[in-house]
């Protein structure tokens, strides 16, 4: 987990207003895959029903979502620092500590994902892949019409919806508490961090 205090990244920008340092964190691949997966989940969930005339597009969006997650995982191995999986390893204890710290008013700014956010990231990726796998199985000769596959696809769908709500809630909470606007960061790639928190 890259905590700001321990990093003096070379990508600071002087043009930010006083008291705020703009730091380049999300490269274009991270941003494109993030919004692409979001679009794929939305498309599969609400735009193109698996039954009826949206079935083909439902499948297509499913493939796109899984493909983007796969690309993001590869990028997590070879990409720049903040995009790397090693910058935000899945660590439930650290996530718990992060949440209790937030509760106690200790608000660390993380340049990559914060530990709780990191868990959500892995959860969402795993869920999207599981959706893709079960969805694909439903279309194969071997698993067509098998109950548990269909069941699993729907249960994981419910889980993704819960996760999305938690994900959005986490974004709002973190933005309010650390005063680092996270949504613009995922659009422009730059986190605007209050300079006194950079340590």
């Amino acid at each position, binding site marked *: 987990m890259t905590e700001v205090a321990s990093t003096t990244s070379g*990508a600071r920008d002087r043009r930010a207003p006083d008291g705020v340092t703009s730091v380049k964190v999300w490269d*274009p*691949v991270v941003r494109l895959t993030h919004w692409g997966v979001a679009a794929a989940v939305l498309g599969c969930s609400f735009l193109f029903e698996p039954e009826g005339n949206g079935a083909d597009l439902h499948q297509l969006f499913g493939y*796109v979502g899984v*493909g983007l997650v796969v690309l993001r995982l590869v990028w997590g191995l070879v990409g720049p620092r903040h995009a790397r999986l090693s910058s935000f390893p899945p660590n439930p204890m650290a996530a718990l500590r992060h949440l209790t710290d937030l509760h106690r008013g200790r608000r660390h700014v993380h340049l990559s994902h914060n530990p709780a956010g990191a868990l959500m990231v892995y959860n969402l990726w795993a869920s999207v892949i599981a959706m893709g796998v079960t969805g694909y199985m439903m279309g194969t000769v071997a698993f067509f019409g098998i109950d548990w596959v269909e069941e699993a696809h729907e249960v994981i769908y419910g889980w993704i919806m819960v996760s999305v709500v938690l994900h959005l809630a986490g974004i709002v909470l973190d933005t309010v508490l650390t005063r680092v606007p996270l949504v613009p960061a995922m659009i422009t790639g730059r986190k605007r961090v209050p300079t006194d928190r950079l340590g």
Partner: protein
Amino acid sequence: MTAVAVSDRARTGRRAALLSAVIVVQTLCAIFFLGDVIGDLVGDGQFEGPHKWVEIVAGLAMVGGVAFLIFELRRVMNRVAILENATRAAQGEMADVIEAFFDEWNLTASERDVALLMLKGIENDEIARIRGTASGTVRAQGAAVFRKAGVDGRPQLFSIFMEELLAGE
């Protein structure tokens, strides 16, 4: 020098964004191709004829293409990082150079401000507005700067720093 670095940086930044978009699209295509091949392999067992081999080669070629593009993108991103550092260094050094000259000329605090604003190409009236003084004061301070620097106007003041930049190449 600095301006070139800045425009170069913007161009490389755009290149990185474009490369990323191509990588995303090509990854999806590669997965589609390979998925099709694997589906044929494990699905109905019909795996004959040159057609399938063409598909396999095409799929693998796309994966190789993606790998190359990712490698290329990393190179471009490193270049952006280097340019950003270089630009910052150049800006920082230029500021030091300017400070050194101001010291040498024994400029007062107000004269330093006025001289710096002049170097930024700001008109006297605007400088007066920024500093909240009369424009006559700015003209007088400007004249003092020129006198101490031994030049007879703005163009010559610029040329001192320009020469420093060119000599630094």
